[in-house]
């Protein structure tokens, strides 16, 4: 039996495919955080003064807050003065076309499988490429503009779409929300802005690809998606980073707003560097994501495949404010090596006849610790609200852990709330059965894991479902090869 455990252990040893560093000259602020740093960031972004005021307000608030400790994760205290809060590749400033972008940068994205050249891009998918603190390119903007869709870096939106930004930024996740959201509101550098006008079905999949490259920098991006009445959009984000020995902080805020009959589908394939098998290095992924179903019959759907990061702390949530609105959360989270994941969702039912669905699949391998934490709250006016939650955990090996913390708060007697949870283990019997039929152990593990995740992968846009499946194979692939 021992021999088998060792092979399973080998199987879950990492092989991180995106660990390269791009050698590019960058404009990087020295480490440290003060009002001065924030003024510098704001100036580099040529921001209007109201934006700077917002940032400073958030910073002053943040100074009064403490790092939350309730999550089931452990890490040494973060020294916020040791982080650089701004880093941008030098030549990019003001690039109007791909010809003006440093070929090293284009090459980095090619290596990641995200060609920024529209001719070579995946058809039907527009990409905003964020490198460290700035957006370096946004493809298919013209095609989208023809449909009335705004898809641009958020720093540009702050300058050019002032009314929308002032009305919506911080309206779902206020700067007072939590420690990392306040920090983000103070120092965010770039991210993506999406606006879908009334009645428009966005003609392309939109996506943002986040890349951390510089050492000792943090990435603080901000995404805002607004879907006006009767509109719909599908958006996907991907993330990777080089393999480095130190931990790097990624603290993003994502806000979604769906008006009457609008629908937003937000998918994440997160593959930040997870650190080595002894827990050295890796990204701290401390993210606040929240969607507001503001209109009646609106729908927000979160799908996430979380395979990377040393620590993941995120709860993409839905506020079901509009009557008959729908919130969904589909998640696959992998914790292997020394990874820790504390992730889940919040479904806040406020409107009548609101419905929510939660499907969470946690995979723990090696010494990984995977926690599902979810809140379902049915407010007193939420007549006939319904929720169904399903939380499944899969264990590979016997040194990992799976934990489930469901919180239910029901204040209306007409609510129907269901919670199901299972924990299973890839057994020696299953592996033997597959191998006896000629499959390698790797194939067997990947087949069982993919079967376990099927319900969630079915929710991803097709191209990405294939990617996610491949990523999961790589993530759990062993020395065998």
């Amino acid at each position, binding site marked *: 039996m021992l*021999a088998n455990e060792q092979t399973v252990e080998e199987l879950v040893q990492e092989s991180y495919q995106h660990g390269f560093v791009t050698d590019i000259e960058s404009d990087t602020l020295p480490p440290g955080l003060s009002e001065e740093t924030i003024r510098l960031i704001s100036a580099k972004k040529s921001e209007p003064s109201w934006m700077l005021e917002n940032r400073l307000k958030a910073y002053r608030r943040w100074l009064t807050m403490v790092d939350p400790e309730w999550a089931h994760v452990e890490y040494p205290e973060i020294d916020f003065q040791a982080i650089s809060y701004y880093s941008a590749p030098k030549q990019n400033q003001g690039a109007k076309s791909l010809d003006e972008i440093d070929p090293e940068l284009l090459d980095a994205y090619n290596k990641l499988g995200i060609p920024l050249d529209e001719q070579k891009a995946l058809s039907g998918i527009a990409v905003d490429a964020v490198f460290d603190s700035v957006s370096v390119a946004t493809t298919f903007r013209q095609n989208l503009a023809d449909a009335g869709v705004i898809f641009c870096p958020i720093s540009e939106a702050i300058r050019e779409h002032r009314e929308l930004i002032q009305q919506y930024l911080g309206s779902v996740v206020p700067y007072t929300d939590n420690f990392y959201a306040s920090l983000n509101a103070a120092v965010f550098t770039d991210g993506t802005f999406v606006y879908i006008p009334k009645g428009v079905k966005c003609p392309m999949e939109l996506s943002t690809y986040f890349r951390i490259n510089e050492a000792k920098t943090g990435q603080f991006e901000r995404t805002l998606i607004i879907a006006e009445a009767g509109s719909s959009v599908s958006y996907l984000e991907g993330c990777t980073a080089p393999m480095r020995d130190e931990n790097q902080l990624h603290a993003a805020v994502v806000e979604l707003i769906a008006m009457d009959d609008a629908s937003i589908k937000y998918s994440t394939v997160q593959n930040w560097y997870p650190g080595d098998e002894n827990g050295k290095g890796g990204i701290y992924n401390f993210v606040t994501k929240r969607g507001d179903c503001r209109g009646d019959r609106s729908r927000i759907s979160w799908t996430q495949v979380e395979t990377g990061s040393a620590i993941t702390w995120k709860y993409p949530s839905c506020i079901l404010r509009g009557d008959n609105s729908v919130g969904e959360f589909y998640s696959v989270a992998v914790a292997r090596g020394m990874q820790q994941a504390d992730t889940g969702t919040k479904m806040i039912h406020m409107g009548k006849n609101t419905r929510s669905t939660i499907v969470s699949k946690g995979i723990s391998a090696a010494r990984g610790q995977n926690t599902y934490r979810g809140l379902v709250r049915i407010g007193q006016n939420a007549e006939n609200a319904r929720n169904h939650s399903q939380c499944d955990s899969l264990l590979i090996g016997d040194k990992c852990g799976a934990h489930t913390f469901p919180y239910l708060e029901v204040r209306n007697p007409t609510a129907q709330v269901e919670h199901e949870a299972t924990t299973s283990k890839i057994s020696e*019997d*299953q592996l033997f059965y597959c*191998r*006896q039929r000629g499959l390698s152990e790797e*194939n067997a593990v990947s*087949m069982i894991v993919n079967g376990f*995740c099927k319900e969630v992968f079915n929710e991803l846009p097709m191209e990405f479902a294939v990617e996610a499946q491949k990523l999961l194979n790589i993530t759990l692939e062993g020395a065998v090869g």
Partner: protein
Amino acid sequence: MNQMKPNTMLSINNLTVEVEGKTILHGLDLEIGKGEIHAIMGPNGSGKSTLSHTLSGRDGYQVTAGEALLDGEDLLSLETEERAHRGVFLAMQYPVELPGVNNMTFMRESLNAVRRARGEEELDAVSFIKLVRAKAAEVKLDPKLLKRDVNSGFSGGEKKRNEILQMALLEPQLAILDETDSGLDIDALRIVADGINALRSPDRSIILITHYQRLLDYIEPDFVHVLSEGRIVRSGDKQLALKLEEQGYGWITQEAAA
């Protein structure tokens, strides 16, 4: 070791196996010719399952002495899946469930893994579906079960038929059926036995591991062996199985001890 006869499929010599430090097989010898069916019977704890798991390469079975040659090749040094590629098939006593893994996909991956290892071309989806449907009809497996997850929620009889279907697809040289009859009612037993009989061939050897002689009413073995305390203590033809049915194992184990 022994000189192999030209028509030998499997030659086991002095096989000694430990499980968790305890010796279970004590120098077992067995010679199986091509196209032959051998029934191995014996009381609980005599080592029947240890033999099937050792031959198919399950972890945790430590071979401390002896050898097993498949078509002249050292079987015991091969990985589990390599043995499957060489044509060793074990129909399990308790086929496991693989939730989320589609039965048809599983069988196709399995068949193609074996074909790849043999340097044969993989079957495309269409040819595979045709093949698997035809074979499923032969073993009277409800085609709906092909669309379900592997063995998930299958009845005992359906699980065993699903095993025989995989055996029919993989066309093994050496099939080991580990208590395939256990837990089957008489109708299910007949269907499974028909499936196995249909797979009799001059190029295929079959080991039937069973407690009861009733399976042998449907599948006529060429040889019957009695396993006791990790050794074959008596071999004969099917008359031996009938005698065991009447008189139990006591007389043989006593003779062996004497």
